[in-house]
Structures are given as structure tokens and as C-alpha cells.
């Protein structure tokens, strides 16, 4: 069931795969993703409050800023690395990203 769900969450775009990561109940869903250089991550916000996903990973650094409920934001993965994405507002949120 989980595999089916993950498959549904991953869609392929012209320039690489777009990995959908939802933010719900102050949790990244899924908790981890494996991607390739050039892939994108689209962050959804299903919570009724704002989130702010970011990473300090030098090669893939991004900070999507304030993300209102229902809003989508997309970032592109630039380099091979293994890093964490966090939320600036909710310290217990953690997404592990592996880029091959």
C-alpha cells in the first residue's frame, strides 16, 4: 500500500522527477526521499498553518520562505549530496534527502 502511495506521489516531468512532499501534522510526508541531480521537490502544505522548509546543505541550499496553507513551492536539486530539510517554525520536522 505504501509503495502504491509513494508511486502516486512521484510524477515525472520533462526535466526530471518531481518528488511531492506534503507537510501535514507538522510532519514531512514521506520522511525521506531519494532523487537524482536535476529532480525537483514540490512542498505542499496541508496544515492549517504556515511552514518554512529550508536546508543549509551548501550544494543544494534553499529556503522557500513562508509557505501558507494550501500553497505549493518547488525547489530543484543541484548536486549529489545527502542532507536534511527542516522547517524553521517547527523544529521537530525533518526530511532526509539523498541525491545521486
Amino acid at each position, binding site marked *: 500500500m505504501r509503495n502504491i502511495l509513494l508511486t502516486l506521489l512521484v510524477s515525472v516531468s520533462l526535466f526530471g522527477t518531481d518528488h511531492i512532499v506534503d507537510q501535514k501534522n507538522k510532519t514531512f510526508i514521506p520522511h525521506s526521499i531519494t532523487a537524482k541531480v536535476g529532480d525537483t521537490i514540490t512542498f505542499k502544505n496541508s496544515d*492549517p*498553518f504556515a511552514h518554512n522548509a529550508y536546508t543549509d546543505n551548501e550544494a543544494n541550499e534553499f529556503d522557500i520562505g513562508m509557505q501558507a496553507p494550501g500553497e505549493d513551492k518547488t525547489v530543484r536539486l543541484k548536486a549529489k549530496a545527502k542532507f536534511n530539510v527542516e522547517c*524553521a517554525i517547527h523544529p521537530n520536522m525533518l526530511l532526509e534527502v539523498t541525491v545521486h
Partner: protein
Amino acid sequence: MAKDYKFEVGEKIYHQTCITCHGESGVTSEDLNFVVRPRNLSKTILTQEQTYEVIKEGGHYWGSYSDMMPAFKYVYDEYQLRAVAYYISLKFNKGLEKKAEELYAHSDKISKKQEPKMLKRGKKIYNRNCRWCHGLNAKGDGEATRNPDKSIFPYDLTRTLLTNKQMFLYAKYGGKFWGTDKDDMPSWSKKYDDFTLKSVIKYIDVTFRKDKKIKIKSNFKP
């Protein structure tokens, strides 16, 4: 055993006035529906003196978003206000001031070598994590408060009567630990070490609270 008149006065007023929101044991009844539930008085970090100040001036004066906790200085005289704070302190949160001091005493000390780095570190973390709720000027009006459901009510840090030590403990352990109903003010201890959290508090104090040093009589000084 001698009668404690002050305790009795405080108890009487508490049962006449405070009990409606704060409950008989200092905890709000689950049956009552508040947007922001009153502080659990058995967990509050406030000292007796600070409790008196909040009862006297109301929550909004000390940085709370709402005036749900009204100013009672127009209702009761000085002795009565202090008696209520005395009652709450003895009845519900006896020993909490000591517990807070102990928690602070066990936190990492800042070395002389670390001190010069504190403001820079504090500013970086404040702007990364705190400003979304507490705002660019720590007024409690950050972007996250503009959610459609209006469910976040951060404190105006320029007005809070908490000492720096208390603010550090609040940031480290989170609001729920100290009696708030929700965990909108999360515990940052898993993410940041004591040096970082103390740096943030120092940055807030130097940058936003420099003109408003709260003079509170307490053994637990800033």
C-alpha cells in the same frame, strides 16, 4: 497552627473570580472552549511577583496577544492582588521557581571565549526561526500570525516580564512544559544547544528589550 490571613483572602478571591477560567486546581476544565486556553497554573514559570504583575495589569500589558486575562487593578486593591498571587504560588506552583533555577543551573555555561560570538549567532537564529511568529521587531506580529485561521498568538517579546533566564528555559523546553495548552512555542532543545538558545535570548534582550527593562522583585533575576 496560626491562620494565614493573606492565604485566606487570596483563596476567597480566587474562588470568586479566577476559578471560572483557571479551574479549582489551576487547570482549565476541558468543558470550556477557549481560543487560547488559560495557562496551567501548576506549571507556570512565573514567580509570585510576576504572577501579581499579570493579575494587576492583565496579560495584554505584558505582551500577550489578547486581553483574555484582564487587568484586575480596577477590581481589587493592592493587598488583595498580592494575596491572590500568594495563594496561587502556595497552592499550585510551590517549588516551581526553584525547579526553574535548577534547570538553568544545569544548562551549559557560556565561556569568555564564546561571549563575543553570541549576538551574531543569536541574530542568525532569530531571523531564521523566531521572526516568523514573533516578528522582525519581536512584537509578536510575524508572518505566521497572518494565517487564515488566526490560530497562532505569539508573545510581544518587547513587553514580556520574563527574565532572560526564564526566556531561555521557555525556548529550551517549550510552552507546553510551562503550562500553555498548545505547543505553538515548541521546545528547541533538540535542534539547538544551550549556547545557541542563550545567544538568541541575548540578541532579543539587547536588540528589542533595551528600552524596557522590567523591574521585577524576584530572586530569579535576569
